[in-house]
């Protein structure tokens, strides 16, 4: 009971932390992008287009 509760507690806190922080991180990375990077597709780190490598062959 104790261990399960502790696991669930930290799991829920982690999920909520990600949910709280996500829009701020998105805003932060967007603040480093130029106009074309913002409107040309999804990039997570300015200058590094991750989604293109993830979607190779996914036509």
């Amino acid at each position, binding site marked *: 009971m104790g261990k399960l509760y502790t696991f669930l*507690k930290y799991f*829920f*806190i982690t999920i*909520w932390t990600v949910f709280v922080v996500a*829009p*701020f991180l998105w805003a932060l990375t967007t603040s480093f992008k130029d106009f074309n990077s*913002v409107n040309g597709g*999804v990039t997570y780190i300015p200058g590094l287009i991750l989604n293109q490598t993830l979607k190779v062959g996914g036509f």
Partner: protein
Amino acid sequence: MNFKHKYIFLFPGLFVLIGILIFPIIFVVRLSLSGWNSYNGLNFIGLENYIRLFTDDPRFWESFFRLSFLSVTTVVLQYVIGFALAHMVWKEIKFQRFFRVLFLIPMMTTPVIMTVIWRTFFHESLGPVNDILGNFGLSPKWLTDPTLAKFTVIIVEVWQWTPFMFLLLLAGLLSLPKEPFLAAAIDGASPVRKFIYVTFPLMAPISIGAIIIRLIEASKIMDTVYVLTSGGPGTSTETSSFYIFIKGLREFQMGYAASMSFTYLIIMIISLTVIAKVLTKLLLKD
């Protein structure tokens, strides 16, 4: 000491109260009895606006029921999540102070700006949510599907205002007396029983206050809807306040918008009083 002049000192406060609270309400009532638009003045037309509202405007009532659904859903979610989070960081955990501050941050931000960020977050082709879900073959239309758009509004509202619930409930938990918990521990109560029979009943008055405050605030959802979906697609996320805004400040039907505002105010006062009484009866049995 019979100091009759003391009433003079009440005048500044009374004057401010009349100016900022009573006068606008009286003016709205007078405005609602007029056909004031951008062409004619404050002409008296009797109950015409109210008759139109109750017999010939289903859009207002649809927006009202939509608002009721959105506000009740968001407040219930905020309460459950806020209580869970408060309960988790109430007792000693790692990085307790860090989490207590982190969970409050969304509440400190400007709703309009954060909603703009959420709009780009849920953007169908430029947002990260659909980009990640796209790897699993999913591309939900967060802002253009009528059902999902409501869900998106709920997500943003829950993100923004759960910290408020968390703050009130954490303050309540921290102010609880220790004796009932010691008595429960001596009796060998399990953590679940402690929560059901000690923590929850002791938190009931604070819970009622927090729920009522949030219901009052949630019943005025306007900025989130305006920025995120503008009431769309169609009218699927249009709330009463947004519809009143459209009628009053886009179509300049000031008289009709005033009649809707006043009706909305009366409904909200009655429904919130009933909700407060029901919650008090349910949660405060003794």
